[in-house]
């Protein structure tokens, strides 16, 4: 009985989170925290932090990561399924409706003008997102070289950006290993 109730509650809570967040990802975290930690007490701040750390080290969509994680914690696999559906459904419904109408709207001259303006807004938004992300890494020579190479690769090459990600990960592993070896050596000479 209680479990049934929980699943429905889980679904509607994540439905609300999905419907109320603009921008997704990190913009979602304050609303998620309020609903899940303060109101329902399904998770604590430690869990939220854990979700953020896990999301930073795994691929995928942050909103889905959070819903799956908290849903699983509350009610196992069923919980994760219900919470994830909840967070997705508002997007799916709203965008489906909009996209049916947008094709007709786009033909209106003034709407076309608005979209021409929006293109500039989107370019600026993406640039700002990149700046914000770049505050989260430590810029040593290695990071700068990788960044510039991936930038040039994406601008000028016709190959998939997936290769850039794979090469970046491999180089990171090698670089991390070299630093590790160097530190171990320094430690060894220090102690001897």
């Amino acid at each position, binding site marked *: 009985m209680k479990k049934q109730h929980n699943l429905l509650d889980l679904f509607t809570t994540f439905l609300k989170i*999905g419907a109320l967040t*603009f*921008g*997704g*990802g*990190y913009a979602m975290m304050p609303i998620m925290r309020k609903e899940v930690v303060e109101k329902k007490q399904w998770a604590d701040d430690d869990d939220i932090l*854990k979700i953020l750390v*896990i999301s*930073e*080290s795994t691929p*995928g*969509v*942050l909103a*889905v*990561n959070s819903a799956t994680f908290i849903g*699983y914690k509350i009610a196992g*696999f069923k919980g994760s399924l219900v919470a994830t559906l909840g*967070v*997705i459904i508002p*997007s799916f419904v*709203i*965008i489906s409706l909009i*996209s*049916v109408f*947008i*094709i007709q709207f*786009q033909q209106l001259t*003034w709407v076309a*003008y*608005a*979209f*021409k*303006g*929006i*293109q*500039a*807004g*989107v*370019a*600026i*938004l*993406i640039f700002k*997102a*990149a700046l914000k*992300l770049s505050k989260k*890494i430590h810029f040593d020579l*290695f990071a*700068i070289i990788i*960044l510039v190479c*991936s*930038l040039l690769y*994406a601008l000028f*090459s016709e190959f998939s950006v*997936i290769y*850039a*990600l794979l*090469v*970046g*990960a491999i*180089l990171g592993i090698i670089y991390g290993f070299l630093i590790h070896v160097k530190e171990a050596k320094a430690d060894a000479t220090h102690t001897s």
Partner: protein
Amino acid sequence: MLLTLLKLFWMFFKIGLFTFGGGYAMIPLIKDELVGGGYISADVLINFIGISESTPGPVAVNMATFIGMSQFQDVSIGASLLGAFATTLGVVLPSFIIILLIASLGSKFLQSKVVNHAFLGLKPVVIGLIISVSIALIIHAVLPNIDLKQLNLDLSGFNFKGLIILIIVGAVTMFYKKMSPVKIILFSAILGMLIYGLLPW
């Protein structure tokens, strides 16, 4: 149609699997797979990003649904919904599976050195990719005939109005740093209508 649905699903599964760092990090991948593969035009993609930013819900899911809906718009609404279902399921599934594994098996492997080290290289790549998209968009707004991938530096078609809008939006967002994405999109939409609609040339 079934084949197209499977292809759409697989593309978005790959996109979901290789997105590190949220919705914006997904854009270079979408651009590659879908614009490169001829599924949508670059202009339509930018419109979708704008709408996805100014409607509620995760940007990644919004974009996937949008692109799925757009693929069968000439067939029927039912077919469009199937397309949207395929793309949305595709983009969500990698996250769902990975987090489910972590939640049930524990997150110990994430603390491993190899994963940490991989991110030393992954993070700057992601940032470089996102900057490349914004540079490509800015060039496209001002000099639409340039194609860097073909090394085609065609300066004709210089769009002065596009440049004006970019400068105004850039300046305003630099001044009001806390302006939300929704407001930035709305502001630039109004600016677009004013400058393209009211300026005589």
